[in-house]
């Protein structure tokens, strides 16, 4: 580096440390060379100069936005700038109206007069849109420089997402605002105008809480190459102006219909409910964006909220509460609006609004009818099941489990995993319940070979493919074990249940562990291992006592099961103790008019009678009889059995009169071997 220059810059920099009016004196004190001093002084002068070429970036600065004349309007200040252009606050320059308007000046010009003509014609159509939730288009034109502009109602408010967060609106209030948005979109659709660029920054809410949609139809006006009535052109490699909100068909071939607006409404709703967008497409190439939007399933809103870092979202509730609110109907509604296939979405903005209204009214939503578990449940109800169908579904089920697993892998962040797995497990469980809950009555005989075959292969795939998804694998294993048990194959069910048990033990899921212990206990009984069964029951009982408490129905039910097992192996006194502990809990929790309570009291009463404790047996057996009679009628086999017990009690107790009174109600005479 030049030595003289080095001297200059050192002096210059040191002088700059001084207050401006002392710099000349400082320099005179520190530099004897007049030529050098003159150079430094010139630099100091130049330093004071502002507004030179380097003081503004090499693209349009937005500072002097006031007082520009555009058409019949004069700008006052810049309201914002975006990809399309700038928006100014403006008034009529001719003083005809005092009213403020928003003037949108677009970046792109029209290369031909013909295009400018068409622009003017279409603008006229838009001006006819008049709706309380749509910002009115007043005027528009083309500047002398060929830049198109629009003049719109000025909406003093903020984007809907910012508004909701700023006011910390709860979900219901967010939904009600969104219903206004739907109403505006529906109105425009009835007038054959599609918005095609719906996003929060185009949906404003005034301080008074009124929704106003901006820029209706403008996106279409800007799609310059489409002649009216011409077939939509295939545009490849070109992304819509706002990829985050683009529908699959927009991304793929630029086709725009009202269904695209419904999709974009779904994206906005997703964002309002979760604080996130369904897809993250930032920093991705166009082909990646296309793949994500067209092929990837978005995370359900209820799952998305738990993944949100709390500081990025001004959530209307805590993540946990939010998740509970969203799960179910709202999840289903949003996902239906976001379907990849346009014809599987809501047919109109109005239908979407109707479903949200039903949700707000606590009525069943229509989207639910599409949800696959729901559909399956209905399908199961409608059809008599053949085993072959069951087998086919089983294959689908395994495939489904693998698909969701695969999708989970696509979601990169590790922290998302746990949430997703929970979601998947719930799906699988719901599906299995829907499938097998009703199907198995008809399974049996030679057809079960087919079921066996698909089960066996399914199990194999489970073990291999879900190795890194322990939770969902355990869920599937216990479900399939349930199927084996239905087929009477306890030997096949046992290892699956044990595997699931080990997983849940490792994950410290006491509820699942207790349930699996109970199932294993039943398997042990079927396989004639009463001691093993008892040990399993007792372990489950301990867990229930610790987790739920001794006096809870869940604990009492285990006591009841264990007591039945002990009773069937002749261990009456142990059984009596357990039944006696369970009985008051059943009466309290289930009530006196419940079959389970009646059955329990009847068993306990019968055991007391057999042991000669008639005084204890009598009230129990009489209550049991009355409950059965009330619940099921006198002639019902359960009631008749309770009657027989009561008659035998009085006979044994040497009270023939009372025995005779009850015996009259018997439809058949008691036999000595009936209990």
């Amino acid at each position, binding site marked *: 580096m030049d030595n003289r220059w080095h001297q200059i810059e050192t002096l210059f920099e040191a002088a700059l440390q001084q207050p401006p009016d002392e710099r000349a004196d400082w320099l005179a004190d520190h530099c004897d060379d007049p030529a050098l001093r003159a150079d430094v002084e*010139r630099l100091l002068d130049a330093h004071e100069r502002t507004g030179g070429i380097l003081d503004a970036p090499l693209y349009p600065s937005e500072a*002097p936005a006031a007082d520009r004349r555009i058409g019949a309007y004069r700008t006052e200040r810049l309201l914002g700038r975006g990809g399309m252009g700038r928006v100014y606050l403006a008034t009529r320059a001719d003083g005809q109206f005092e009213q403020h308007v928003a003037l949108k000046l677009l970046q792109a010009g029209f290369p031909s007069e013909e295009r400018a003509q068409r622009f003017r014609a279409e603008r006229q159509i838009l001006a006819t849109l008049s709706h309380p939730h749509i910002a009115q288009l007043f005027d528009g034109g083309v500047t002398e420089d060929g830049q198109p502009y629009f003049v719109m109602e000025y909406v003093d408010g903020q984007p809907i997402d910012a508004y909701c967060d700023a006011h910390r609106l709860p979900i219901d209030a967010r939904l009600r605002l969104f219903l206004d948005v739907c109403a505006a979109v529906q109105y425009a659709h009835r007038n054959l105008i599609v918005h095609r660029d719906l996003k929060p920054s185009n949906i404003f809410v005034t301080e008074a809480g009124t929704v106003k949609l901006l820029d209706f139809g403008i996106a279409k006006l800007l799609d310059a190459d489409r002649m009216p009535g011409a077939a939509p052109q295939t545009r490849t490699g070109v992304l819509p102006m706002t990829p985050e909100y683009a529908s699959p068909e927009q991304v793929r071939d630029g086709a725009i219909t009202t269904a695209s607006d419904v999709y974009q409404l779904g994206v906005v709703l997703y964002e309002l409910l979760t604080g996130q967008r369904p897809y993250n497409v930032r920093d991705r190439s166009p082909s990646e964006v296309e793949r994500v939007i067209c092929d990837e399933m978005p995370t359900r809103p209820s799952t998305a909220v738990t993944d949100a870092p709390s500081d990025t979202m001004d959530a209307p509730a805590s993540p946990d509460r939010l998740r509970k609110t969203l799960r179910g109907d709202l999840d289903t509604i949003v996902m239906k609006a976001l379907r990849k296939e346009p014809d599987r979405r809501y047919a109109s903005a109005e239908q979407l609004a109707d479903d949200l209204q039903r949700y707000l009214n606590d009525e069943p939503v229509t989207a639910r009818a599409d949800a696959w578990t729901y559909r399956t449940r209905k399908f199961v109800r409608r059809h008599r099941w053949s085993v072959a169908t069951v087998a086919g579904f089983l294959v689908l089920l395994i495939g489904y489990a693998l698909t969701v697993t695969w999708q989970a892998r696509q979601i990169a962040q590790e922290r998302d995993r746990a949430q997703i797995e929970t979601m998947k497990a719930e799906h699988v469980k719901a599906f299995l319940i829907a499938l097998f809950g009703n199907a198995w009555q008809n399974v049996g005989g030679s057809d079960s070979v087919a079921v066996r075959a698909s089960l066996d292969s399914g199990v194999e795939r489970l073990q291999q493919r879900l190795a890194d998804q322990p939770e969902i694998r355990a869920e599937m294993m216990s479900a399939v074990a349930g199927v084996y048990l239905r087929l009477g194959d306890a030997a096949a069910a046992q290892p699956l249940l044990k595997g699931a048990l080990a997983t849940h033990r490792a994950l410290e899921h006491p509820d699942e562990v207790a349930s699996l212990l109970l199932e294993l206990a039943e398997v042990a009984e079927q396989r004639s291992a009463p001691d093993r069964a008892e040990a399993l029951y007792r372990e489950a009982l301990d867990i229930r006592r610790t987790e739920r408490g001794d006096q809870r129905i869940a604990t009492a039910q285990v006591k009841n099961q264990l007591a039945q097992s002990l009773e069937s192996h002749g261990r009456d006194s142990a059984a009596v103790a357990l039944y006696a502990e369970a009985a008051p809990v059943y009466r309290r929790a289930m009530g006196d008019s419940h079959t389970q309570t009646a059955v329990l009291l009847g068993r306990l009463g019968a055991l007391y009678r057999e042991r000669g404790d008639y005084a204890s047996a009598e009230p129990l057996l009489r209550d049991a009889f009355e409950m059965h009679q009330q619940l099921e009628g006198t002639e019902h086999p359960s009631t008749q059995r309770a009657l027989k017990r009561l008659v035998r009690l009085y006979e044994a107790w040497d009270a023939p009169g009372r025995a005779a009174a009850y015996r009259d109600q018997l439809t058949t005479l008691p036999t000595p071997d009936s209990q």
Partner: protein
Amino acid sequence: MASVDTDTRNTVTRLLHAARDGDPSAFDRLMPLVYEELRKVARQQLREEYDDQAPRTTELVHELYLKLVHQADVDWHGRAHFFTIAARAMRQILIDHARKRNAAKRGGDWTRITLSDYRMAEETTWDDLIALDDALDRLNALDPRKRKVVEYRFFGGMTEKEIADVLDVSTRTVQRDWVKARAWLYNELYPDAE
């Protein structure tokens, strides 16, 4: 934006890696590639009929980066290097364009064409740009690093931190360089200013 063939992308990405790893010839090989692609994307901005519209350099450079580089394969450092090259290419393209315009208008009435019709008080003209370019060459002879700081920031839209990283100096040094370079250039460009 038109798509770029995979070969170009691979080459650019590979050269960026080489540059980062200290291969000086990588820059020389990158420059023509980046220049050519940037010229293509800037062409529309620089068309005669849009003379009154500013070339949005920063946006252009970012668009170009997205287009030319496998982002996943290039770290923050490599990205900054890319921008220095793009800044240089941008400067060259703008100046080429400005000189061509002047040549075409030689002999005719001289009209000042504003780069940006939004800038009212201080209009940046194509003339100003040419003057800046000449001054930057002189600054380079005196102090190459300061020339780079101005070029990267003004033509490449890079942040002080990015520039500091590329030049392997502190952010504070970049700031001081900028102040000194700016004073020096303004003395050259506006010598009679009060």
